[in-house]
């Protein structure tokens, strides 16, 4: 199993923010999805003072939004409140969204159970043929965890708000989440289907204390690549010659000769008259 593991936390967010900035125009849009992973609170999401997502329920993911690259002030209000009437439940200012980025904004609980916003960069690099990418993000009010696939630790010691990502053979995996370094199962086991040519992003969310830990899934497809080739036969029983078939060449040559001969005869016959 080929495996590339990267643990990206706040460092990853900083890297995304540090990406080169370009003036915002239609060609420089970023693709942004928003996941609501704060239990028990229906919210309205505002970007730069305008309502972006109304009546947003926990456990819900938006379709990818095409947003102009730039700097965003994000505010999350309890449903019904607005910038004019109340204080935001969660707030993140100057969130930089670089041109061409594919990112997910997640409203979730931090390790201590306080609502927060995190911006994750989604890896949309091409996957090898036959493989899919599995990304697991810790966005739950819970201690560090190990993420296991088919009983084997795939991502070890992942803390909120870090992630682990790996390219694995496409297929279904029995996944569970245990407290780091233990066998204490916090979530699962659950069957996670890793589609070929897609990044399957699994979020652990909720609160261990409140007993509402859960999994949410986001899929980004279109990352596939073609197989390296198609093998052929192995016995060499039916090779093709590279050029025209031999019989065609022979027939052509003989026909040309016969035509030349006939032409000469005709000319000779005419001359005799």
């Amino acid at each position, binding site marked *: 199993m080929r495996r590339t593991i990267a643990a990206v936390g706040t460092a990853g967010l900083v890297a995304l923010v540090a990406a080169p900035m370009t003036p915002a125009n239609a060609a420089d849009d970023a693709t942004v999805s928003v996941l609501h992973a704060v239990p028990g609170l229906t919210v309205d999401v505002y970007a730069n003072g305008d309502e972006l997502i109304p009546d947003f329920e926990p456990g*819900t993911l938006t*379709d990818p939004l095409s947003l102009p690259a730039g700097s965003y002030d994000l505010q999350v209000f309890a449903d019904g409140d607005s910038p004019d009437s109340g204080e935001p439940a969660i707030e993140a200012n100057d969130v930089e969204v670089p041109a061409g980025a594919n990112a997910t904004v997640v409203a979730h609980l931090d390790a201590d159970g306080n609502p927060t916003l995190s911006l994750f960069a989604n890896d949309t690099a091409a996957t*090898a043929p036959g493989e899919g990418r599995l990304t697991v993000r810790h966005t739950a009010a819970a201690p560090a965890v190990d993420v296991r696939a088919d009983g084997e630790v795939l991502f070890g010691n992942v803390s909120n708000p870090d992630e682990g990502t790996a390219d694995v053979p496409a297929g279904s995996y029995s996944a569970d989440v245990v407290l780091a370094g233990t066998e204490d199962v916090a979530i699962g086991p659950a*069957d996670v289907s890793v589609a070929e040519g897609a990044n399957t992003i699994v979020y652990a969310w909720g609160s261990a204390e409140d007993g509402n830990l859960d999994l949410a899934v986001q899929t980004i497809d*279109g990352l596939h690549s*073609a197989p390296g080739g*198609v093998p*052929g036969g192995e016995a*060499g029983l039916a090779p093709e010659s*590279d050029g025209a078939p031999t019989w065609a060449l022979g027939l052509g040559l003989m026909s040309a000769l016969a035509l030349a001969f006939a032409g000469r005869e005709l000319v000779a016959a005419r001359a005799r008259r």
Partner: protein
Amino acid sequence: MKTRTVALVAALALAGLVVSVTAAWSRLGPGLEVREPEAGPPVSASSGGAPAGSGESSSGRSRAGLDAAQAPERRPVRVTMGSVEVAAAVRPVGVAQDGQMQLPPDPRVLGWYRFGPAPGAATGGSVVLAGHLDSKRLGLGPLVRLRDLRAGEDIEVTLSDGTTSSYTVVELRRFDRQALPAELFSRSGPERLHVITCGGEYLPDAGGYQQNLVVTAAPV
């Protein structure tokens, strides 16, 4: 020699020339090129909705639970190519250890690339069937007759739900084994059926057959 005899020889010779040139052309000449630009794979599933700051309510959303329903499987189980009398079972295959498309070891069975679209898929794109030309243990398979297929002939694919998808051959192309275009495995754009086997010279010391023979067919 009588003029009539000479004229007969000339006519026969002309016919011979025509036949030989036609035969050579069908082997050497460019196939019937019906190509349409392939769109690149989309990087994101979809994008839409109102841009930030427009004040409009946003695009769709969905429950992000783990229990997403799987579409019922619909896969090719059999393929027939009328005029060349190819009739073969089809089974799903993936990718081999070496990154090449996996093929059933039996040359009488074709593999369907299960990571790509099935016939009639909403996404369009390329349905890929491929098989070994021959095997050391089982000898020649039916795909040896693929090279005799011509543009305009029919290919029928039977699916696991009992339905049949019909295609018409558009062109035959040959590619060096190292240079099979990735677009043959396109997962979007107009639907195409690609039937692939090997061809060209057989050089045992250079990996065997040197080319891939690719039949491209379009839905009827």
